[in-house]
């Protein structure tokens, strides 16, 4: 086909898309990981028993008595464990779970007021959120230790996660402060006496990457908000009744566990404000853990690489947060749009149904002479059935013109040999489908024309029902209803559902809103005057039917939809053919939309197209499908990071909505509900194909390259549905149809929808 000879389809964008989706997935995972463990008090419910003095904590009782009875500062990097405790009258206050934008500054202020130093065991993900607070902690002479990246219970996670938790936190602190944390407190730990074997293996693993474990002598349990008095008492080591605390000898030094993050810490601040002056007066000193042990700073300077790594980790986490928020907004917006669209569709469909019901059986009948124009290019598989079904129409005044566009498979000969009355054959040199249609229109002698694809099979009542709308002189063209003939296999079934939902809901809506963008090439009726106004069938887009319909509409004609005029068509039977068909539809529709973009500013009929149909198509057939890959990536993220109950609920809800819509559409079209079971499966292959086609089409349009006519191999299944195959039909699939026209131009704009509101 000379009109659209092209270079290769662009490909590089697939790599870009893949890369972008990978980045999105990585960012979402990072976000999910960084936020998953950061809520609440920081104490898992199942470990609360440990803090409450459960004698045998999960993970089994400790077998390493030396560790469990040693001091709270534990060094396991040598051949033998070494533990230490604070000297007398030395208290190492430690604050877990920060930095927190509210409580960490409050605690820092109290400490500064009383000239006390402390150690902050920070959660890496929060360091990335508040790097300035982390810097302030160090700048005011305190010490920073690691409390893992996400407050993970390390004893319950696999080895790789343990390493990641510690290395990420180290990187985060290095990026924020330029120093490493080497002290480490495992989340959900308290005193050495509560160490389980699992806990000990955690400490050993941490030691291998250079971490000294710091447990606590006294757990204030301030996260439970027991009251300021209780926090003060626990800090002093006064027996609180549980018995597993270091008690009594309050002269002794201690590592005291408090919290500056993970919840309301006002009691902690108040307790500190009371404790610090009182105990300082008694000769206690408050110091960092390293200070208490007279050890050098536990925060050595970080390497440049790790500082850079920390900075990028922080940027990545921040950007990932934005991305996740944007995705949430996108999903919400898509859901709203989808629901709005559905309600408009239903309202319009109901109105359309009432109108059709009121009209039928009354008023004048339309029986003017009609010519059916059948353009055909290498259509030998179906042409006989098509022509026979047309001749069998129960319409009183019907001509048929078959325009053979230079076929090489004897299409014209087949029709001529049939010697049917009222059927003419026109041969022309190959010039493309629009040219063939124009030829047929020129040869027709009637004022009313029906344009049909060469592979479409009509029912006897189709023509009659189709043209009745012409009783109204303002009607310039009428759209019929295409149905998929080959719906036995999954792909056909999907397309059947798609066609029915598209026709019944979108077409009825377009009809009621008077903005029909496409009459399918398979079945449409035209007033000659309207065709003349449109300048004939245009050839500068691949979607000549959309282009033509838009032109007719802009010329001021009404274009209604007649759902009872049925044309049977053969849908692509392989993914490859489906891809090619949809690529052409989508690209052609983009062309037509662009060509008629100025209708946005027009008054009257053109304005209705420009301000109703074009925005609708842009949003639901272009923009939402373009975001659909990201939605699928978000679904993968959801599988890993969202609660299953939520996922299942969302999925079932969307599926129910989708099924109800489809069921409603099937009922409107008088179809059985049987194929509905194929609907959930549509999400897996069909949906991706539909949105990738939009990506491909938009990229092709942007690049400005040419698009080849894509071809479709026909099997004659639509023909077989109504009419037995004629004898001279070549064997299935080898009819030289590699060079057929693409027909089956059902309404693309309805088709490659990515029903985003139906997806998680």
């Amino acid at each position, binding site marked *: 086909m000379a009109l659209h000879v092209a270079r290769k389809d662009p490909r*590089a964008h697939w790599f*870009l898309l893949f890369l*972008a989706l990978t*980045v999105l997935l*990585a960012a979402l995972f*990072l976000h999910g990981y960084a936020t998953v463990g950061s809520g609440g008090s920081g104490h898992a419910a199942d470990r609360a028993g440990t803090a409450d003095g459960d004698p045998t904590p999960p993970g089994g009782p400790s077998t*390493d008595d*030396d560790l469990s*009875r*040693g*001091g709270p500062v534990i060094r396991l*990097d*040598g*051949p*033998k464990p*070494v*533990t*230490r405790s*604070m*000297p*007398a009258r030395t208290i190492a206050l430690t604050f877990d779970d920060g930095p927190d934008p509210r409580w960490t500054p409050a605690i820092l202020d109290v400490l500064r007021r009383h000239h006390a130093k402390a150690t902050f065991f920070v959660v890496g993900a929060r360091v990335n959120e508040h790097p300035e607070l982390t810097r302030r902690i160090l700048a005011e002479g305190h010490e920073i230790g690691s409390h893992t990246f996400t407050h993970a219970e390390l004893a319950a996670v696999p080895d790789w996660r343990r390493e990641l938790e510690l290395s990420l936190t180290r*990187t*985060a602190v290095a990026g924020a402060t330029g120093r*490493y944390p*080497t002290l480490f407190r495992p989340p959900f730990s308290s005193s050495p006496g509560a160490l389980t074997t699992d806990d000990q*293996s955690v400490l050993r693993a941490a030691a291998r*990457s250079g971490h000294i474990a710091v447990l606590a002598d006294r757990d204030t349990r301030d996260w439970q908000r027991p009251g300021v008095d209780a926090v003060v008492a626990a800090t002093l080591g006064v027996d609180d009744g549980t018995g597993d605390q270091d008690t009594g000898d309050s002269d002794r030094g201690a590592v005291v566990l408090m919290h500056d993050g993970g919840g309301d810490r006002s009691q902690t601040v108040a307790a500190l404000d009371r404790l610090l002056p009182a105990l300082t007066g008694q000769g206690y000193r408050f110091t960092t853990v390293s200070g208490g042990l*007279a*050890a*050098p*700073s536990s925060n*050595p300077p970080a390497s440049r*690489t790790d500082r*850079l790594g*920390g900075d*990028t*980790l*922080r*940027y990545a*986490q921040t*950007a990932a947060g934005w991305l996740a928020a944007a995705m949430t907004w996108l999903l919400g917006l898509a859901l709203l749009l989808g629901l709005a669209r559905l309600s408009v569709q239903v309202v319009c469909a109901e109105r359309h149904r009432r109108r059709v019901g009121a009209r039928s059986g009354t008023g004048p009948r339309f029986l003017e002479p009609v010519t059916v124009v059948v353009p055909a290019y290498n259509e030998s598989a179906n042409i006989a059935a098509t022509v026979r079904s047309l001749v069998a129409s129960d319409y009183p005044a019907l001509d048929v013109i078959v325009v053979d566009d230079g076929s090489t498979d004897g299409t014209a000969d087949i029709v001529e040999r049939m010697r049917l009355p009222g059927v*003419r*054959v026109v*041969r*022309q040199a190959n010039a493309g489908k629009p040219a063939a249609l*124009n030829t047929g*229109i*020129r*040869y027709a002698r009637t004022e009313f024309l029906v344009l049909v694809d060469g592979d479409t099979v009509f029912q006897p009542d189709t023509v009659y029902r189709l043209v009745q709308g012409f009783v109204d002189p303002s009607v310039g063209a009428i759209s019929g209803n295409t149905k998929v003939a080959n719906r036995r296999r999954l792909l056909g079934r999907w397309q059947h559902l798609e066609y029915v939902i598209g026709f019944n809901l979108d077409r009825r809506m377009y009809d009621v809103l008077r903005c029909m963008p496409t009459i399918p090439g398979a079945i449409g009726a035209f007033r000659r005057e309207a*065709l*003349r106004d449109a300048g*004939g069938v245009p*050839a500068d887009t691949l979607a000549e039917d959309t282009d033509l319909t838009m032109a007719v509409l802009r010329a001021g004609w009404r274009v209604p939809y007649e759902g009872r005029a049925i044309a049977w068509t053969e849908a692509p039977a392989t993914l490859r053919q489906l891809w090619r068909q949809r690529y052409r539809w989508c*690209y052609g529709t983009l*062309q*037509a939309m662009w060509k008629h973009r100025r209708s946005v500013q027009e008054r009257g009929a053109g304005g209705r197209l420009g301000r109703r149909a074009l925005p609708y198509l842009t949003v639901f057939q272009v923009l939402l499908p373009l975001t659909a890959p990201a939605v699928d990536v978000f679904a993968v993220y959801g599988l890993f990071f969202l609660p299953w109950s939520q996922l299942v609920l969302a999925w079932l809800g969307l599926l129910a909505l989708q099924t109800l819509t489809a069921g409603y559409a099937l009922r409107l079209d008088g179809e059985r509900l049987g194929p509905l079971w194929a609907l959930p499966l549509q999400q897996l292959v069909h949906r991706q194909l539909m949105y990738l086609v939009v990506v491909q089409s938009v990229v*092709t349009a942007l*690049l*400005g390259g*040419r698009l080849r006519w894509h071809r479709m191999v026909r099997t004659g299944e639509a023909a077989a549905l109504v009419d037995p195959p004629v004898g001279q039909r070549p064997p299935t699939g080898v009819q030289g149809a590699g060079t057929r026209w693409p027909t089956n131009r059902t309404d693309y704009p309805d088709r490659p929808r990515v029903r985003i509101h139906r997806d998680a």
Partner: protein
Amino acid sequence: MLDSRHPATRTRHRPARPQPVFVDRTGRRRRLAVLAGSGLGAGLLVSLGAIALGLFAGGSVPVPGWPDPQDGTGRERAGVGQLVDAPGPGTTPTGQGGPAEGPARPPAETPRTTPAPSASTTRANPGDPHRNPSPGKPGGPDRTGRPDRSAGTPG
């Protein structure tokens, strides 16, 4: 049999062979798109690299060594700041003296007098060059040989 080479032209506006919509014969848009796409791709690769760097930085670092417990803390009383050697994993000392372990080892809280002046609790792990055994501290390499240890834990 009719022939389209002599058509009865009834449609007035026969479309001239038109320029297809979107087609850019100059190729300028394609070049621009290739440029923009390359930039986008480079940006995406850099962000992937950044995420990877952020994820995989921060491995092992040298841990600052510990001084002798009495160093630097003049106020330290006997009985605190004790150093306790614990056995390695896999052994199960009872603390009260397993039969094979010699004298009963006092519990960790037991006050210890005069820790060895030479003790440095930081050990160089022979297999790990990152370990930083507290430079400048005098110290025997192995505290197990300390004479004043009150507990004889297996070395």
